[in-house]
């Protein structure tokens, strides 16, 4: 029988019986030698949360493709005054130039001779502005109401939840049309109107998050330090409640863009600015003869909404703790 590993380690190699030698060499190799660097017991301080998050996003194909498309659309919108200075609603050429037939108007002209590309570029700015403003407002109202209702509970919760439900039962689009019909349609009023119909969803989501989080021990610990309610809501609970809200926000931008397009299609948008929806609306009568007038802005809407949804999915994958894999 070969000696046990422990004894083999103590024996000089030449004294170990032949059968035992192989086993002994293996165990010696496992033994840490003096030259091996000493691994520090304390792990190196991890990179900041934001940087880690950025690197995770950078490795997610959904996030990268969605983000790239969105960046492109945003750049288009931002540089629209440079790319096409002047009014995109101005008549610049003869009508019904098909895309790809005239180098001066790569995407052709519409039924009145307005440049399609200029419209799409300027429309990007309008769509994104409405999407961002409406989402920001909707989040502001929704998170505030949901946070207060969820954190305080009791009567506050009952009252705020009922108010939220009243808004939620109103048919979204009818509500939108009514608000826009009363107020002058402009980017600001459109954003407010869209925020009014979208905040209840955010409120319900953040109420649920706050209800769960307020029971956490760290909230009790924060209260035991004498922190006030506002401080606990904003700086203790909100950061933990944010991930699902961020995911919702990306989808909210997409639906705000769709709502704005729908309103503009129906002619209820701001008549002084060109938007993707209004372009489709203007082209719908010529759908049989010049379908590109609807298809091009439609494609722009689809691409933007798709990008936002991709980004939303990616954020959900990254931020949702229940779906989290090892980082």
């Amino acid at each position, binding site marked *: 029988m070969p000696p046990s590993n422990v004894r083999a380690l103590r024996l000089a190699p030449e004294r170990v019986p032949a059968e035992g030698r192989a086993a002994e060499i293996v165990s010696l190799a496992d033994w840490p030698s003096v030259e091996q660097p000493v691994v520090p017991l304390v792990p190196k301080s991890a990179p900041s949360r934001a940087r880690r998050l950025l690197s995770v996003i950078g490795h997610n194909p959904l996030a990268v493709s969605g983000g790239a498309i969105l960046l492109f659309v945003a750049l288009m919108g931002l540089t629209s005054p440079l790319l096409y200075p002047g009014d995109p609603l101005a008549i610049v050429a003869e009508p019904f130039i098909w895309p790809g037939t005239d180098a001066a108007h790569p995407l052709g002209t519409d039924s009145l001779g307005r440049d399609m590309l200029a419209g799409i570029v300027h429309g990007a700015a309008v769509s994104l502005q409405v999407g961002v403003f409406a989402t920001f407002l909707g989040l502001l109202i929704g998170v505030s109401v949901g946070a207060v209702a969820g954190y305080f509970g009791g009567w506050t919760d009952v009252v705020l939840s009922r108010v939220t439900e009243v808004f939620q039962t109103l048919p979204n689009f009818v509500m939108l049309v009514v608000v826009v019909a009363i107020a002058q349609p402009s980017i600001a009023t459109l954003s407010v109107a869209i925020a009014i119909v979208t905040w209840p969803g955010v409120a319900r989501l953040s109420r649920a998050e706050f209800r769960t989080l307020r029971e956490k021990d760290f909230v009790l610990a924060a209260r*035991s330090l004498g922190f006030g309610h506002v401080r606990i809501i904003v700086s203790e609970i909100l950061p933990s409640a944010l991930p699902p809200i961020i995911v919702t926000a990306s989808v909210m931008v997409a639906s705000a863009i769709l709502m704005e397009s729908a309103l503009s299609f129906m002619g209820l948008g701001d008549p002084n600015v060109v938007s993707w929806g209004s372009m489709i609306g203007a082209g719908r009568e010529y759908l049989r003869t010049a379908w590109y007038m609807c298809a091009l802005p439609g494609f722009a809407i689809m691409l933007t909404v798709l990008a936002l949804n991709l980004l939303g999915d990616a954020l959900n994958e990254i931020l949702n703790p229940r779906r989290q894999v090892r980082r």
Partner: protein
Amino acid sequence: MSEHFILPRGDGPSLLAVDDLRVAFGEKQPVKGISFEINEGETLAIVGESGSGKSLTALSIMGLLPAGGTIAHGSIQFEGREITTLAPREARALRGGSIGMIFQEPMTCLNPVMTIGAQIIEALRQHQSLSRKAARARALELLDLVRIPDPHRRIDDFPYQLSGGMRQRVMIAVAVACSPRLLIADEPTTALDVTIQAQVLDLIDRLRRELSMAVLLITHDLGVVSQWADRVVVMYAGRKVEQARPDAMFGNPLHPYTRGLLNASPRLGDSYNYIDGPLYEIPGSISSLAGDRGCAFAPRCAHVRAGCRDAVPALATLSHGRQVACPVLLSEENRVTAVDL
């Protein structure tokens, strides 16, 4: 035993006086009138099993009873000031300022999305007007005070990067950031490894001396009591059943419940086996409250007499501040003479 028997401490002036405190949740009263005092610089332990009302007593002092709970009766005086009726703003100044609290679960009591440094700085700046820089310097000192190795590197860590014992140390640093007069420790070591427990309790004891604060130690661990407490209050079903110095309580328990507790804790040298030498258990459970009329422990008590179920036994005060709420054992032969060491 340990040295504090030779050097008695905690005889300073009274810091906190709880008088006939009753906590109610609707009809139910989980705390049914408890009174005790904590003197400056002493460690008072409250012992009892789950549901005896010890945590609720602590939360009442903090003014942080869970939703639905109210202080139905009694007073809590801190530094001579009634604190049950404080305005919210004053109560907040007290919490974290003059009274600090540490909790059972170090894993969940730190905000998971904030660095430990930020959490200490927050606590400091809540009660003291410090610049961000000064607060950070103080946070480093505090981390050093609670013996976190390499505070400069640790201060920007998130709680998940620390071990349980380290987190409890950070919790303690947050709680003592503003040099409180009283530290309430609600089962501070229950969630920790045995080897870490002693370290954490040593730390609390050292901070008590260095920061000259009093400690209210809530525990169900009698070993902790024997080593770190100056006085012990034994709670059962919302009432105090015995109060003594630990040596007196361990040497000569006067309440049947205290006896049961002591018998139910393993001693070094005894061999226990689930077949031939099981550890003593107190029969029944704390939920078997026999109505509200008599002694709450009567249904589980081996010494129960006819009178026990008729009236709640009064606390008898003996010498050296010892109190016990059981006339039966007291009246037994020789008991009274052997009460104190």
